[in-house]
């Protein structure tokens, strides 16, 4: 009896979580121009209108560019920070780690407003660079967490062996440490990309006028009407943000088994 109840409850929770997503995906293939049930036929017309919608495509390009740059900056900074924190006895190491991880814990709105006020105080206007910086701040913790965990498991004596054989510290990093770190770097980069790609709170505060990312574009479109285009766009975003990490995880696992974990 008890178990059956728990089972039913579990199913309901999952339905509550995933049914709306399923509905969005389903309706994006609806031929009817009103995005609602009953469906009148299967069609990919909303994906086509999406493709032809200049504003959405521009937002899409902005989001991809922003995501890629965020991922790039975050992984470089994250790897450097992890190296410093794991490999060197820096005074206040724990404090620095906590501070770097903190953006995960602080509510995003607070972080968004704080950065905005701070830059206002410094008389720096909104710009794409500022938006990028904001995204880096809250994707960096994820990169650091993943990369640090991996770095701890890379034995120090492997690097020492490379040094003793004549490789300089820089050569050792690029020929030994980085290749062994690669699965974590890739995973961290993917995290950063997907988090940046579907962020809305921070982006709304930081984006300069005239620049829209996909989530802010959807947000402004919703203010007018619920167009079936949005369903199609939602489907694309779901595929991207769910698919990319899955592919990434698979690639990372492959890399890890090849390099002996």
């Amino acid at each position, binding site marked *: 009896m008890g178990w059956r109840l728990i089972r039913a409850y579990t199913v309901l929770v999952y339905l509550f979580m995933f049914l709306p997503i399923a509905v969005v995906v389903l309706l994006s293939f609806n031929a009817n121009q009103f995005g609602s049930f009953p469906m009148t036929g299967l069609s990919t017309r909303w994906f086509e209108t999406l493709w032809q919608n200049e504003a959405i495509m521009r937002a899409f390009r902005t989001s991809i560019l922003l995501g890629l740059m965020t991922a790039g900056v975050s992984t470089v900074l994250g790897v450097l920070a992890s190296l410093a924190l794991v490999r060197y006895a820096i005074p206040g190491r724990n404090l620095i780690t906590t501070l770097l991880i903190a953006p995960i814990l602080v509510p995003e709105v607070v972080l968004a407003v704080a950065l905005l006020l701070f830059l206002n105080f410094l008389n720096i206007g909104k710009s794409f660079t500022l938006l990028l910086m904001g995204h880096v701040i809250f994707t960096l913790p994820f990169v650091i967490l993943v990369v640090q965990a991996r770095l701890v498991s890379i*034995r120090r*004596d*492997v690097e*020492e*062996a*490379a*040094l*003793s*054989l*004549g*490789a*300089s*510290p820089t*050569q*050792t990093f690029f*020929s*030994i440490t980085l*290749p*062994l770190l690669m699965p974590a770097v890739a995973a961290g980069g993917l995290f950063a990309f997907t988090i940046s790609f579907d962020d809305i709170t921070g982006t709304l505060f930081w984006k300069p006028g005239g620049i829209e990312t996909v989530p802010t574009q959807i947000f402004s479109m919703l203010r007018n009407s619920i167009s079936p285009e949005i369903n199609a766009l939602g489907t694309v975003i779901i595929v991207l943000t769910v698919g990319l990490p899955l592919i990434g995880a698979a690639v990372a696992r492959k890399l890890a088994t*090849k*390099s*002996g*974990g």
Partner: protein
Amino acid sequence: MSAVSLTNIVKRFGDFTAVHKMSLDIAEGSFVTLLGPSGCGKTTTLRMIAGLLDPSEGEIAIKGKRVNDVPIHKRNLGLVFQNYALFPHKTVADNVAFGLKYRNIDKDEMRRKVAEALELVQLPDLGGRYPKELSGGQQQRIALARAIVIEPDVLLLDEPLSALDANLREDMRVELKRIQQRIGVTTVFVTHDQTEALAMSDQIIVMSKGRVEQVGAPEEVYNTPASEFVAQFLGASNLLPARCTDVSGGEVALELPGFPSFAIPAARAPQVSAAGPVRLVIRAEKLHLTRPGAEAGDGLSVDATVENVDYQGQSARYFLKVAEHQMQAVNMIDERPFATGEQVSLRFRARDCAALPAGSNA
């Protein structure tokens, strides 16, 4: 010119002194072992020679050249670790070739040297494998090949056999010594295993608590320990309080309760120069148990009672009571081991004993 020389080296970590003022000269081509229990400073010393640690004081020279300020990657050393430390993402051949990449050697020459090194460690066919596909013993051979292929000025081995299981360890010990003799590279070996040290070394440096206890050839260190620590660390020794009654004519006369008075050669008690309290050192395997009343040989004889027997197959370790002393003896077993409670006669030769000043326990 020594291959490696340490002059007044000191290493401190905060308030803790890991290595006290230490000077050492290692001869070209020799196999030198730093021996001691964990925490004695042997690995710290090795890491300072390697350049992985900077000495707090003192000078390190390799081939007569001061290297204090030379970073590890410019010291031309071969380093072998306890856990092999092979590059997991590179094949065996790429592992071995790694050091050659930084030495301006053309491709053919490199391939030839790698093949040669793999031949030397008797694993010529494993070049295409990845380290995790190899056994521990094979991995350590590859690590050795990787270290010697660059023709290092000094080969540094940090407990390279400790991760291997017992049988393999003995094979590798012989193998390692063979390779070292073949290429003649100056080798510094760190271990806590006295058997390895005695079997492989030209010279042993016994360390304890950051200090050098004794430097000498294996036999010298074994037969004439310079301190109680050395006597006890290398093999099982009996240390008995005794009195020196006279030092004269190249002999040191000793007296201890329950024993007839006897004299040992002065060479076996270099630190005893006058009458006074001393410590008598007798190795467990130099004490021979016989049945009481058996034919007396050329040695001394005392009565003893067997208190306990540790049977080891071909030999046995006996725990004995001799007058007021607890002693240990290790003997080959002839027909049957002696039994607990049996009265025996304990034979030993005066020249197999050594003596230390009473206060020498470092």
